[in-house]
């Protein structure tokens, strides 16, 4: 055994030295928000299993910690560092410039450096579809609850509103935001309170884009026997029968593909956009919402999807409007 010990140590060392190392910096919601961050984490763990990379993840407890987390990854022998969330753009911009030999990727943010890949999603397209689906179920009054009041979430809302108008021009949208700080991603109690107020005012379906706060809306839907629409991950399983569908944002695929490309030496900087066409955004159908999302609704949604992909329908984009 004694002779074996140094040998196994060498084996371990060589293995770690050769493994492709990925550092994942998650946003405040944490890997268990069952939404945005969970999706990113799922993609990274899939890469860990299938590609044999070495993965280390950290959660940014507050915004000030982000830069330090990226720096500590960059200083060590990590090959690729992935930042999740718009709040990390500034940190990556700074650190990526300081470590030009390292590769970086960011989700939901755009950083124009040769060693940074920006993974962007056309959230408004997916939101448009769920807006139309919500209105098929709700008729006159539809709800939206956003997490933190930021342009990204406004983009969800704007696409959603356009989908509603397309389905029923007379339908009204009731829209609430949980807050204006990062705490809004983690305040299910407030989200539930907002949802109850909306349901009480006659709203039938609420689309929630609020990270970990979303569970509060699902609780309200369950108590009031109404419907909710999940976001980012497929959240249908969280409250089967009360979640109409989920607006998927395939952060998992984007993260997995980025890791795969980087490992195979095909990493390229610059922005990549994931829309309906590339299935980067979509709505979810599974055994949990099979019954409530009927075939007719699905057929109509598929038609709209085709029209958006072919360019017949142009979904208004908050980012473009803001410019």
């Amino acid at each position, binding site marked *: 055994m004694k002779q074996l010990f140094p040998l196994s140590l060498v084996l371990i060392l060589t293995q770690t030295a050769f493994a492709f190392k990925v550092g994942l910096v998650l946003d405040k919601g*944490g*890997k*268990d*928000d069952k939404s945005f961050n969970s999706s990113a984490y799922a993609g990274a763990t899939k890469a860990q299993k299938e590609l044999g990379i070495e993965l280390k993840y950290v*959660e940014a*407890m507050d915004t000030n910690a982000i830069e330090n987390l990226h720096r500590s990854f960059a200083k060590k022998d990590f090959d690729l560092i992935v930042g999740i969330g718009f709040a990390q753009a500034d940190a990556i911009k700074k650190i990526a410039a300081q470590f030009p030999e390292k590769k970086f990727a960011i989700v939901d943010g755009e950083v124009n450096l040769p060693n940074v890949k920006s993974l962007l999603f056309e959230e408004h397209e997916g939101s448009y579809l769920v807006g139309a689906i919500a209105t098929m179920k709700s008729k006159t009054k539809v709800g939206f609850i956003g997490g933190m009041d930021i342009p990204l979430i406004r983009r969800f809302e704007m696409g959603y509103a356009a989908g509603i108008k397309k389905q029923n021009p007379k339908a009204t949208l*009731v*829209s*609430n*935001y949980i807050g*204006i700080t990062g*705490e809004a991603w*983690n*305040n*299910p*109690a*407030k989200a*539930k*309170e*907002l949802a*109850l*107020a*909306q349901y*009480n*005012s006659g709203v039938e379906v609420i689309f929630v884009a609020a990270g*970990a706060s979303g*569970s*509060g809306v699902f*609780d309200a839907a*369950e*108590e009031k026997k109404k419907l909710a629409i999940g976001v980012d991950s497929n959240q249908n399983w*969280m409250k089967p029968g009360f979640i109409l569908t989920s607006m998927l944002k395939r952060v998992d695929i984007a993260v997995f593909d980025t890791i795969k490309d980087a490992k195979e030496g095909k990493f390229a900087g610059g922005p990549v956009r994931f829309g309906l066409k590339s299935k980067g955004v979509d709505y979810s159908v599974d055994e949990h919402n099979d019954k409530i999302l009927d075939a007719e609704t699905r057929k109509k949604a598929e038609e709209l999807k085709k029209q958006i992909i072919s360019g017949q329908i142009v979904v208004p984009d908050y980012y473009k409007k803001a410019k």
Partner: protein
Amino acid sequence: MDQETGLALSTLLISIARGAAPLLFAAMGGLLSERSGVIQIALEGMMLMGALFAAITSYFTGSPWLGFAAGSLAGLIMAGLKSFFVLKLRTDQIVTGTAINILAVGIAPFITKILFQSTGSTPNLPIEARFVYAPLVISFLLSGGLMYWFSQTRSSLWVQFAGEAPQALQASGISVGKVRLFSLLTCGLFAGMGGATLSLCLASAYSPNMTAGRGFMALAALIFGRWRPLPTFFACLLFALTDAIQIRLQGATTGIPVQFIQILPYLITIIALAGFFGRSQAPKGLGQHI
């Protein structure tokens, strides 16, 4: 009053009760602690622990009542820790309170990682493992009980003297240390209940930092209420009312910016502290060691 207004009013009242419950628990606990002379800025940490252990216990046992008990116990233990440092080792009360808050933020991911492989949140609780309204009733009963105790009983005078004139109480043969220990532990118990209300009634799981500043809101309510049970009770209700109104106004088009309504509770606190509604006098012995 027609039926529709009646319905809207009743949902508003329930909404106020929901918003007020965690504040009431924490503020009443904080009131006890501060009246006995111990500055209480650790409400946030005690609430967090209460919320965490309530959610964990309810998840494993399926009983919200056991969860509620475990939550209050967790608050009590945090308070026990604080009293050991503050009363026994005579550390600075503000620094210790801050440490308790930071400790609570750190403990949560540590425990959830062991139990659920998750960093700082518990799995969602099924509807049978949650409360519908029981903690709301408890919070109001508890506030009423404390009001009665403060105005009608001799033992409450010990707590008040421990905060106002600790030397005098000591001279009369009552141990200030014991009175403060009792107040602190009860404070932890109440704050733990407040946390349990959050994770078992207002939400359906523990999520990181889910108190979202409610511990400090409770402290503000208590100062606004001039360290007296009845005004503190109304301060909590007022905070909950502004929150409920703000939620309702967000959807409607009133012309008043939502942000303005959101700052109301804080604005009221500042005005109150500035002495516009009469002087807000802290207990004289607050923060003093004996």
